[in-house]
């Protein structure tokens, strides 16, 4: 009798627990079902920035791979990617279409600072995740005001801090000259550099801004040289970065040169500037360069190559964009795996803010993704590298440039 009663109670309790776990486990917001997850994306497939469209295509190809291999927690990914032509009003239209008409669970990797600024308020008002946006501006890591928006790549201020750390350690007596683009991006990197130098900010003895409408930066470089600086930080987009490197060589000026991450392309910056002139230039990276022979036998590189061959054969295997798309898609997979069966928008943000030491194949060894409720900057580490006349060579340790550290 007592035993029977106990057994009945135990059975009842077990039943309750099962029911509770079943009910608690499967909660869905629009866009998620037992069999699928709808993910929205906005990319510039047309227009002036259409080169970035490769990122969206790579992500789509990666989700094809995920689906073919059984999906995430048994659900297939339905990836809906729209073109905004890099136009902010079109981005608003497409974001509203994704949220209100397609009813996606979240918008992932919307690209470009103007487009993301245009939709940020809307996304936060609607409480739909605007996850891992494809821009380096520092303003995406503001959980207090915009808890539904999160960046992904190292932000510009982190990058500036990393240069500052390098300078303090290796050239503590340097006189620094800075060329920067006079907009959000340029000022962001410069601010990071100054913050990183801290009370040694006086090391910067000359600053020269340029406008994207300037034909050349020659006069800025002449001014910087005449300041007597011996370390030159080149915060410029590809065309201007190349002009600057070339002009430095023409003026027979031989400072230590640092060129920022956006202008490290060998083909579009260092070659036009002259490979001889570029030899010895320093920069930073956080992903593996697919053209670097040191990764030829790397398991993760081979995995990426196999993915490209099978799922995106038209893709450019020398481009950093395809590596970027592949890696950021893996990051989202990680978030979805962690979210399990609780596919609510709130839980997606909770899991995105709960990534701990995530390592991904195409990130440089030692670089890990970390987020928390107060840290909406997934990648904040980079490694220094030096151009040897042919290709970039990594050196030194991974440097942490966390904002606020």
């Amino acid at each position, binding site marked *: 009798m007592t035993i029977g009663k106990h057994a009945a109670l135990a059975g009842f309790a077990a039943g309750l627990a099962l029911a509770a776990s079943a009910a608690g486990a499967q909660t869905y917001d629009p866009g998620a079902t037992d069999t699928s997850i709808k993910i929205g994306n906005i990319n510039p*497939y047309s227009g002036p920035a259409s080169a970035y469209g490769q990122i969206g295509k790579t992500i789509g190809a990666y989700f094809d791979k995920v689906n073919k291999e059984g999906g995430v927690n048994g659900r297939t990914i339905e990836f809906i990617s729209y073109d905004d032509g890099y136009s902010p009003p079109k981005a608003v*239209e497409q974001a509203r279409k994704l949220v209100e008409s397609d009813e996606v669970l979240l918008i992932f990797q919307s690209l470009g600072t103007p487009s993301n600024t245009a939709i940020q308020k809307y996304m936060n008002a609607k409480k739909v995740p605007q996850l891992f946006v494809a821009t380096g501006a520092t303003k995406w890591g503001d959980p207090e005001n915009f808890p539904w928006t999160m960046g992904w790549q190292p932000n510009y201020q982190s990058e500036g801090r990393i240069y500052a750390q390098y300078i303090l350690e290796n050239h503590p007596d340097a006189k620094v000259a800075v060329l920067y683009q006079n907009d959000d991006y340029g000022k962001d990197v410069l601010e990071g550099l100054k913050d990183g130098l801290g009370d040694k900010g006086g090391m910067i003895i000359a600053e020269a801004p340029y406008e994207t409408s300037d034909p050349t930066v020659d006069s800025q470089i002449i001014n910087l040289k005449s300041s007597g600086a011996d370390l030159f930080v080149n915060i410029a987009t590809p065309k201007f970065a190349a002009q600057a490197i070339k002009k430095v060589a023409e003026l027979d000026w031989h400072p230590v040169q640092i060129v920022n991450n956006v202008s490290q392309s060998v083909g579009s910056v260092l070659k036009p500037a002259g490979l001889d002139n570029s030899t010895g230039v320093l920069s930073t990276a956080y992903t593996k360069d697919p053209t670097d022979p040191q990764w030829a036998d790397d398991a993760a590189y081979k995995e990426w190559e196999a993915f490209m061959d099978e799922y995106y054969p038209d893709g450019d295997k020398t481009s950093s964009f395809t590596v970027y798309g592949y890696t950021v898609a893996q990051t989202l997979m990680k978030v979805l795996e962690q979210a399990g069966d609780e596919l609510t928008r709130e839980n997606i943000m909770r899991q995105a803010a709960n990534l701990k030491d995530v390592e991904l194949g195409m990130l440089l060894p030692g670089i890990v993704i970390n987020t928390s409720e107060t840290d909406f900057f997934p990648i904040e580490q980079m490694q220094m590298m030096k151009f040897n006349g042919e290709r970039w060579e990594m050196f030194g340790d991974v440097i942490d440039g966390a904002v606020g550290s």
Partner: protein
Amino acid sequence: MDRSVASETPAKAAPPDRAETSNADLGIPAAWNRAALVLGLLIAVALPFVVKNFMIFQLTTVMIYAIAILGLNLLTGFNGQFSLGHSTFVAIGAYTTAILMEFAGVPFYWTVPAAGMVCFAFGFLFGFPALRLESIYLALATFALAVATPQILKSTPLAPWTGGVQGMVILKPEAPFGLPLNADQWMYFVTLGIGLALAVAAVNLINSRSGRAMKAIRDNPIAARAMGINISLYKTTAFGVSALYAGIAGSLSAVVVQFVAPDSFTFVLAIGLFVGLVIGGVGSIPGAIFGGLFLVFVPNIAEEVSKGLAGAVYGVILILVIYLMPSGAAGLVRLAALKVAAWRR
């Protein structure tokens, strides 16, 4: 939905134009025009209560494009001056509204006429150098204006007011007086009201003495001068009025999108407005709605057909439309209505 808006257009096809005046006696019965106008208005008023908010937003965008195209039409269709630079006036209108709201705290509704006036002044002044340029040269000069606009907006001296590359985020007004409308529906009706007022103004302008003078300049400037028409005055004023329409469109778009940035006003927008003008029908006032519909929906359709070849699909649709409707969408509707009317006789 597309059809519903289409149905309203033969009604507004009233303004006499070359093709129509000659057909006036065996034209479309006036009762049809009136019926279609009433029906079109009813549908326009009912739509926002039927479709999703997102669709309301798209339809509002259609009307905003239509207002800008209408302005371009006054210039190109009725005065014979080309412009590939109307994105500039849209930008000036948008920034006027954004700056007034942001720095002066002016309520949105007052910024609309302000944007119109500022653009009228800019357009009128731009009309003077334009006087010296004929047809394609004017098109090139205005195109240069369109290309320069985003860079000027980004430039440092203006950045404190324009927000530079970052642009400016602005707030959408809620419906006043406790009307049971959400913000999207309210902006739809605001845009509809302003659009209708501007359309009526355009019809009246075209049918006035000034409108006839504008058309005379288009058709034969020498004869117009011989009749004592002050060509410079009319041409510059036409430019100003056209810019006023574009500016009001810009002002509305700033609030509907809730964001202005230089990248919103590239030459792609200028070309888009020109495409809308030709698709809708040069010299047709209701055609502007077709132009707006085309600009908003055809790129989406093209993308749905093929993501990789969206641009090519768009091109094919564009060529087909021009081939099938040489006088624009409005011309096609008018022709169809005329055919039916003749057949009933």
